[in-house]
């Protein structure tokens, strides 16, 4: 009887222990879960990213991805960095961040075998020869034009500045109520891209891509040289303004106005990147077959037309991540061919992976033609990070407003803000 009581007490004790220890066991299982943070500034892929994070977590239940999107990501990340919160994976990468050792060396990762060598080159840090970022796509920028009007007027890709002006004048003559080239200058980054494409492009063509990247890093390009790149660029823009070949509200029209004007047929040409195509088709589905894509001419005589063809959709991994394996598993998932195909089609830009065949845009054929026919230039990732396209666009606002006494003064002003940003970054 006594033994029975003892056994009863023992079983109660064991049951209690099991009840108490079970949640602890569950906690132990929870402790094996790895949390990683993924910070992105890509507004057009918020839904896509959310979906992929969900899919990844289903396949990898032990890894939790905290996805965060910020519209103003390039600035928000600076606040995060200032407070010591480096995201495990980020799409925001600048040369300064690389120089400060914030990112992990990805040089030995197997995915490089699947990426176009030209894109790998653009991802290579010139100072160390290593890859601290990986780009999954290529973006292109150039002149979008109304195919129907170009065909009707017998216009072709301009091979030089003179031909470009002649094309615009032909449009103006045939359609006095249309805007030959529409600028949305209130959103000053759109004007900043004119410098990025038309002016920096000249330096890139003259020095070659590796040469210009090094020259930007060393601050070796003289933007204010007499009759140099910036002076010619300013002269070119003033010529368009004075001949009324751009919209009269070029400084106060917005990026949305630019898209609407092109989609509605009010504007015949716009200078933009591929990201604009999807919005134009949304605004006017009939434009799907009517969007032409051409190169921009050199503002300095004697050079070839150019097209921006640069790395896009960049990822970098924190050098101090606590979970490198989980982060690389996440990247491996994102870089799978079928996932990248869907990414390419969502963004409407070509993939940098050689094994991804996507139907990314109605301008696919034009883009291939341009890449093969004209000088390809990259984005100025080695320009001082303190010099934003917003700042440079404001100089063009002032130029078009007539605030500079001469194109040479504009060139001097550009050199000044470049030098100031360079001094801050170095």
């Amino acid at each position: 009887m006594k033994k029975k009581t003892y056994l009863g007490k023992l079983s109660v004790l064991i049951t209690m222990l099991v009840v108490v220890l079970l949640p602890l066991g569950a906690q132990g299982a929870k402790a094996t879960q790895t949390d990683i943070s993924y910070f992105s500034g890509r507004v057009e892929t918020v839904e896509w990213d959310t979906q992929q994070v969900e899919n990844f977590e289903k396949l990898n239940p032990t890894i939790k991805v905290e996805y965060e999107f910020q519209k103003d990501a390039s600035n928000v990340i600076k606040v995060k960095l200032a407070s010591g919160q480096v995201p495990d994976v980020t799409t925001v990468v600048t040369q300064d961040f690389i120089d400060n050792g914030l990112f992990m060396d990805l040089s030995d990762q197997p995915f490089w075998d699947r990426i176009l060598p030209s894109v790998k080159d653009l991802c290579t840090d010139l100072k160390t020869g290593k890859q601290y970022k990986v780009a999954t796509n290529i973006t292109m920028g150039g002149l979008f034009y109304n195919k129907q009007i170009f065909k009707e007027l017998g216009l072709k890709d301009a091979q030089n500045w003179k031909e470009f002006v002649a094309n615009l004048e032909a449009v103006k003559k045939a359609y006095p109520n249309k805007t030959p080239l529409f600028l949305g200058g209130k959103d000053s980054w759109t004007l900043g891209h004119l410098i990025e494409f038309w002016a920096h492009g000249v330096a890139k063509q003259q020095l070659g891509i590796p040469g210009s990247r090094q020259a930007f890093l060393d601050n070796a390009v003289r933007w204010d040289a007499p009759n140099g790149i910036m002076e010619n660029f300013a002269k070119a823009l003033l010529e368009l303004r004075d001949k009324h070949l751009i919209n009269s509200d070029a400084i106060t029209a917005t990026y949305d106005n630019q898209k609407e004007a092109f989609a509605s047929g009010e504007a015949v040409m716009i200078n933009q990147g591929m990201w604009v195509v999807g919005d134009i088709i949304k605004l006017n589905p009939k434009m799907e077959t009517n969007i032409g894509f051409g190169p921009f001419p050199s503002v300095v005589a004697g050079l070839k037309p150019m097209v921006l063809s640069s790395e896009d959709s960049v990822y970098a991994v924190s050098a101090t991540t606590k979970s490198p394996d989980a982060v690389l598993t996440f990247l491996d998932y994102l870089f799978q061919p079928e996932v990248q195909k869907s990414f390419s089609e969502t963004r409407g830009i070509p993939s940098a992976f050689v094994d991804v065949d996507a139907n990314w845009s109605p301008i696919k054929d034009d883009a291939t033609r341009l890449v093969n026919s004209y000088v390809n230039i990259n984005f100025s990732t080695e320009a001082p990070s303190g010099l934003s396209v917003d700042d440079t666009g404001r100089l063009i606002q002032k130029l078009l407003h007539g605030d500079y006494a001469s194109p040479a003064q504009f060139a001097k002003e550009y050199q000044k803000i470049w030098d100031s940003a360079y001094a801050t970054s170095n």
Partner: protein
Amino acid sequence: MLPATSKNRFLHPNTGSWHRYMAVPALVLFSLFFLYPLSRGVWTSFTAWDGFSTPKFIGLANYKAFFQDSRALRDIQNTVLFALGSAPLLNIAGLLLALLLNRTFKARATVRSLLYLPAVISPMIMGSIWYLLLQPRRGLLAILLQQIGYEATSNWMLSGSSAMLVIVLVNVWQYAGMTMIIYLAGLQAIPIEHFEAAELEGASRGNIFRFIVLPQLTPALKINVITNIIGSLAVFDAILALTDGGPGYDTESLSIYIMRMSYGNKTGYSTAVALILFFIILVPVLFSLKFFNAKEKT
């Protein structure tokens, strides 16, 4: 008298010095969220710091750089110009509206609510709406004018002064309701007997306003003037939405400059400018406080 046992001390504590300890939580919070960030800010203003690398002490160099930067000096001019236009207009408009709406008429409550409504909308949204209405060539107003045969050839955004005027008017439109509410509260606190006595004495409306209303509105005037000075000198959203500080930097305010410098990897410098802005705001606020306190005493 009860002996001082521990039970008695619990029931009848000597609370003479307790109040000091009660202030501790507030002091801790104040130190943590105000004094510490402020002192860090002051320290940061003496450094060259991009926001992510190691800060380098450079003494007063950031302050010197500010007074040598023509863009920064123009931004001070823009900010002060905006405040000089906005703060008095807001007070005049708010006071006039309060005087009008202090009378009894049908739908008074609805009119008051409608006038106050813009103040609760985000200034960014408000600025964007006004831009859609006033945008040169493409705004609703320009389209309506075109339809009645008038082609507006001038572009208000192209001149810094006309752009600033539009920004001031939009700001007044948005916040006049808020100023009005404070004046209304002040007006309603004036005892009705004062008006009755003045009317019995045969005082004119002007004299009633000058000798009865205005002196008793001093507390409301003080709140409105000071908050409007602070708000106007720290103006940010309205300019950002309407002109984005353009053309060039012609309408940029000091607050926008601080944001842009900070995001342009000049965190140390932008902190120094923020402290300069603090003093730019502090001086007129202290002056106004002194003025109104003296008025209240008399």
